[in-house]
């Protein structure tokens, strides 16, 4: 999963982040887990760099360090409305700097700073979401490795694109590098993941359900390199009945900062637990239910009541039960499914006594 730092975090992003957070923390209690997250997977895209180029053209003198999330997000919407086709050569230097030096445009750096504060509050700040390091390998070796296995169709010498040979698996041909020479978002993912493949290591790809076709293809490619791969596609959270990419806006009042501001009266622990109960317990993996502030509020209220109950279990029997539940869930699919976990341990009589659960949910 990659999120470009160009817009505020919406309920769809929050769902993805919380599912990832619970999944990683709960699975870590019973098995070894590493979350592979690297901001460069998001910044090394024409999606980010074309926006940066647009900002530099339209607002070369703006000081972004004090800009608000909404302010930057509105520029992102305007950029998509204007639909300016950037000169492809103008993006080259942006992509090169982002790749080699980890350079991030000040507007996106500001956005990451704003995200970070919200993610800390939400209790997902320790996932390494601010990780930014060079990708594990460069484009050329990873394309070379794909070519060795006969997985690409390379028309660059005709001035055309480079494609992944999806048809060998009955899937469409998928462009990886445009005829302008720009890799799309799949390339940084491959650059980061292919070198991590080891015998016996399982990869779980957590992704936006709308990108299933791409992730099915990624799964096939990684499998070709010897990886064991499973996928977890998460549905988007509709806003007022519609599922839209955040580039079209419509997220006013429902960004992560809006949510954290709304649940103002609850303390931080109740907010964290309530957000998890809602996004991973009320909304299931494929849920098509629109975001509902009233249900989120109710979840935060329920979280506060759960947290108030005093654990009366000196032997920590509940703790043992939690560990059993975690192991059982992990054995089923190789990871702990956040919705199943939330459903199985957060029943009506739950009191969240076990430290293991507190560690996962708060």
């Amino acid at each position, binding site marked *: 999963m990659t999120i470009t730092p160009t817009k505020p975090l919406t309920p769809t992003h929050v769902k993805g982040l919380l599912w990832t957070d619970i999944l990683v923390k709960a699975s870590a209690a019973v098995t070894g887990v590493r979350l592979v997250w690297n901001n460069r997977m998001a910044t090394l895209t024409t999606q980010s760099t074309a926006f940066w180029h647009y900002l530099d053209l339209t607002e070369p003198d703006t000081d972004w360090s004090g800009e608000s999330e909404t302010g930057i997000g509105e520029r992102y919407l305007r950029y998509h409305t204007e639909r300016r086709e950037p000169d492809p050569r103008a993006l080259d230097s942006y992509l090169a700097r982002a790749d080699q030096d980890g350079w991030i445009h000040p507007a996106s750096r500001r956005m990451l700073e704003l995200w970070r504060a919200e993610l800390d509050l939400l209790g997902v700040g320790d996932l390494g979401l601010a990780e930014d390091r060079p990708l594990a390998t460069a484009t050329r070796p990873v394309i070379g490795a794909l070519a060795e296995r006969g997985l690409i169709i390379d028309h660059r010498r*005709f001035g055309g694109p480079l*494609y992944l040979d999806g*048809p060998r698996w*009955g899937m*469409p041909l998928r462009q990886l590098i445009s*005829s302008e020479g720009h890799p799309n978002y799949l390339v940084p993912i491959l650059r980061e993941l292919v070198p991590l493949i080891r015998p016996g290591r399982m990869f779980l790809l957590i992704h936006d359900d709308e990108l299933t076709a791409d992730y099915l293809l990624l799964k096939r490619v990684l499998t070709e390199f010897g990886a064991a791969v499973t996928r977890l596609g998460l549905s988007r959270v509709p806003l007022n009945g519609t599922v839209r990419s955040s580039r079209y806006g419509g997220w006013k009042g429902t960004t992560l900062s809006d949510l954290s501001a709304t649940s103002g009266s609850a303390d931080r622990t109740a907010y964290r637990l309530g957000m998890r109960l809602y996004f991973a317990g009320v909304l299931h993996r494929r849920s098509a239910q629109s975001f509902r502030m009233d249900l989120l509020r109710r979840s935060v209220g329920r979280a506060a009541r759960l947290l108030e109950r005093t654990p009366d279990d000196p032997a920590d029997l509940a703790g043992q039960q939690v560990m059993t539940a975690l192991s059982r869930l992990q054995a089923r699919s190789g990871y702990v499914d956040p919705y199943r976990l939330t459903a199985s341990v957060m029943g009506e009589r739950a009191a969240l006594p076990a430290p293991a659960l507190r560690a996962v949910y708060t």
Partner: protein
Amino acid sequence: MSEAPHEVRSEAWSEALPEAQSDVELLTAAARTRLRAAHDGLGDGPVPWGVGVAVVVADLDVATFIAGVADFALTLPDDLCEGWYRAFTRTVFLAGRPASVAARHPGCRTTAGAPYAWYGPARRGELRPLSRLLRAFDGPAPIDVPTGPLTVTVPGGEPSGHVVDAAVAIGGVSTGDYLVHVHHLIAEAALRGLIGPGDTLRVDHRKALDTAEFRDLLAPARADRVQTRITRSRTEPHHPRLYGVLESNRLQGGH
């Protein structure tokens, strides 16, 4: 779908410069001859209408491509020859690897290990699943051909002793357009019987084909053993350009 250059229409060139008039007229007349020939068809048999061909292209080697086009056109059943010829040998080029496509889309003509495969002639709807799976061939870079004269033996038979000479323009021609031009030129010549199995095809790639030099070949009297490829120039859309011309000694019974 790869965009085939527009077919020739003489009206479009009425504004052509006076000094170019004679060349324009010559090319326009030759282009019309080709259209009329396609319209008249090859024979009287039943004709499947509206058929086209899709070529899957993984890589390009000019010599094997030319041999492949000729072989494909020469091995088609008669009714499909007729239908495709009357449809002006309409063809789309798709990026893809033949071996990967063949498992789920059988029925192509290809040779083992070749980087091309031919589907059809078939109606557009029949080729649609294939074009959805693949992407239109995108090759804006100038065509790269081997230096020196190119000799291709047409597959499918013992050496016939016949020699077919073709001249093809490459100056300012993209890889994608080259595929279109050569495919029309060779396929139509093969369908008309100007190229046969075992023939020797000599291809002369030149920067440009000077109309004056080919004046004789473009004359109506030679039309029955000459194949042309004339269409609008990319750079001067109001001018017809000679992209390819081919002459066969087959119908003279020379050998």
